[in-house]
């Protein structure tokens, strides 16, 4: 049996590890340009105000030169630099543009649109409170999301598998599900003694709907022939549900998990700015109340990093769990 001959080769496309000089030098040159530009536009500012911003670019120049020297020793590093440097360069140039528009020509009204240097200063000065807020947001998000995912998986599996549950459950899902979780806030604040608990429940509700919907559709669309095969192999109901229908539904379930994650971010921020007295959403509205827009932008930057990290984590989990789908899906 020449089984090897039958094996379909799967092409793996690796980015080339060639790092061109112009790519390598783009980051330090852009950083030097940004620094020079900033020194020019901020010449009337107090030097202490923009100290950390200048330091930032000096660090970028330093680190990028060190990496350029180290590149010989690691093809992985070269590949990473070849891949990431254009993006970093674009980010630095975006900062330049922001600097010019705000500090340089003062095109945007103050105090709503501070320059990048002022935002960086707020970020550094207020780091302890920001860290604390991030921690509170994380705790609330994780508890609400976990609760919603567990509830959504259970109801989704029941609705997808059992016809009677589908008959009675679908109308509830269709009527209650589409109401945005944030619309329940006034009610939730009255019912629950604790704003934290009611916010967690609201986040869970926001997550529950898409997870239930997608899980139910994934389970009920399990290929009948997989179930038939499993039955002729001697499978009982537990095997059919947990080892056939659920794995078959996993790609759908992950779509639900991603949709739920997006909904949970929204609900988290709204709930924090309305009811809960902690977290990044609260920080933003608090800073806005004091007209400290540098802090508002700082919190937005933290949020962007925070949310995209969590999103990336979920992508990593998906890649791990759905490794069997490699080459089948792209999203």
């Amino acid at each position: 049996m020449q089984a090897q001959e039958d094996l379909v080769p799967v092409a793996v496309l690796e980015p080339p590890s060639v790092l061109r000089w112009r790519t390598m030098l783009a980051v330090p040159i852009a950083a030097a340009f940004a620094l020079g530009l900033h020194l020019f536009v901020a010449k009337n500012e107090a030097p202490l105000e923009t100290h950390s911003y200048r330091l930032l670019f000096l660090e970028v120049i330093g680190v990028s030169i060190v990496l350029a020297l180290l590149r010989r020793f690691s093809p992985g590093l070269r590949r990473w630099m070849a891949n990431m440097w254009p993006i970093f360069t674009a980010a630095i140039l975006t900062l330049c543009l922001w600097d010019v528009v705000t500090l340089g020509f003062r095109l945007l009204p103050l105090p709503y649109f501070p320059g990048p240097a002022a935002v960086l200063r707020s970020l550094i000065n207020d780091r302890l409170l920001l860290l604390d807020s991030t921690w509170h947001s994380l705790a609330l998000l994780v508890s609400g999301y976990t609760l919603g995912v567990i509830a959504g998986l259970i109801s989704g599996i029941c609705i997808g598998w059992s016809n009677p549950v589908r008959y009675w459950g679908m109308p509830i899902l269709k009527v209650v599900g589409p109401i945005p979780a944030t619309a329940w806030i006034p009610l939730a604040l009255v019912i629950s003694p604790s704003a934290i608990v009611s916010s967690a429940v609201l986040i869970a509700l926001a997550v529950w709907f898409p997870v239930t919907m997608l899980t139910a559709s994934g389970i009920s669309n399990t290929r009948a022939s997989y179930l038939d095969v499993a039955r002729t192999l001697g499978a009982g109901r537990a095997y059919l549900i947990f080892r056939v229908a659920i794995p078959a539904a996993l790609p759908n379930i992950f779509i639900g998990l991603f949709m739920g994650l997006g909904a949970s971010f929204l609900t988290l921020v709204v709930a924090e700015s309305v009811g809960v007295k902690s977290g990044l959403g609260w920080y933003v509205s608090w800073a806005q109340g004091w007209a400290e827009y540098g802090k508002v932008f700082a919190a937005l930057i933290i949020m962007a990093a925070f949310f995209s990290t969590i999103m990336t984590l979920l992508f990593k989990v998906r890649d791990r769990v759905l490794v069997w789908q490699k080459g089948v899906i792209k999203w």
Partner: protein
Amino acid sequence: MVALAEGEASSLAVREVKKTFAAPDDPLARRQVLDGISFSIAAGELVSLVGPSGCGKSTLLRLIAGLDAADSGDLLIGSDPITGPNAQRGLVFQDPNLFPWLTVRRNIQAGLVARGVLREKKHEVDEFMRLVGLDAFANVYPHHLSGGMAQRAALARALINHPKILLLDEPLGALDAFTRMRMQDEVLRIWQARRTTMLLVTHDIDEAIYMSDRIMIMTPRPGRIERTIPVDLARPRQRDSADFLRLRSDILNYLHFAGGA
């Protein structure tokens, strides 16, 4: 009644089986798919069922597998009536239907897991992977396999429960001509090694003659078994021998006649 020991091949008896389905165009009308099917297969026999598409071959196989219930008539394995699907009757479809989320090894041992006997029978998994020549691909996911390899894995998965009868629903229908001929020898080798009773549904006359002890010819609307032809050729068979070709033209003539047109 004493249940047969595991691994022992078993006879199959089908008596006056009828089956209707709701007509797709008119929900009130019933369409007769099987009209009084009767036949029996001895333990260890390899019998083919040929006929034009839509004659109810797959429906009949699903009844024997226990996936659907007949409207009337009896289906017996040995002397036990068939009441539902179980591990005694293995089924292999044209599409291998490997679970894409399991590696080849985990697909093949699925039957042991489903019956909760993986711990005792783990050693057999390697044996069956060797039987179908997939031992080097134990940890590969199905989307990496070619059609022939996937179908071999599906065969091993069906065989691991030592079914008393193996039902093959055009298992080689989707393969190219070369792979197909190789796989026919493969199935015959497994059959000779294990002496499992096999019922092979196919629309390929050559395949039926090459492989089976008997050929049952089925005609459509309503599905009936019109004729059973014994294949008394010595094994291994030559696809171009005079007897082979004569039998082939007999069956083709008969089908043309039976098809009516």
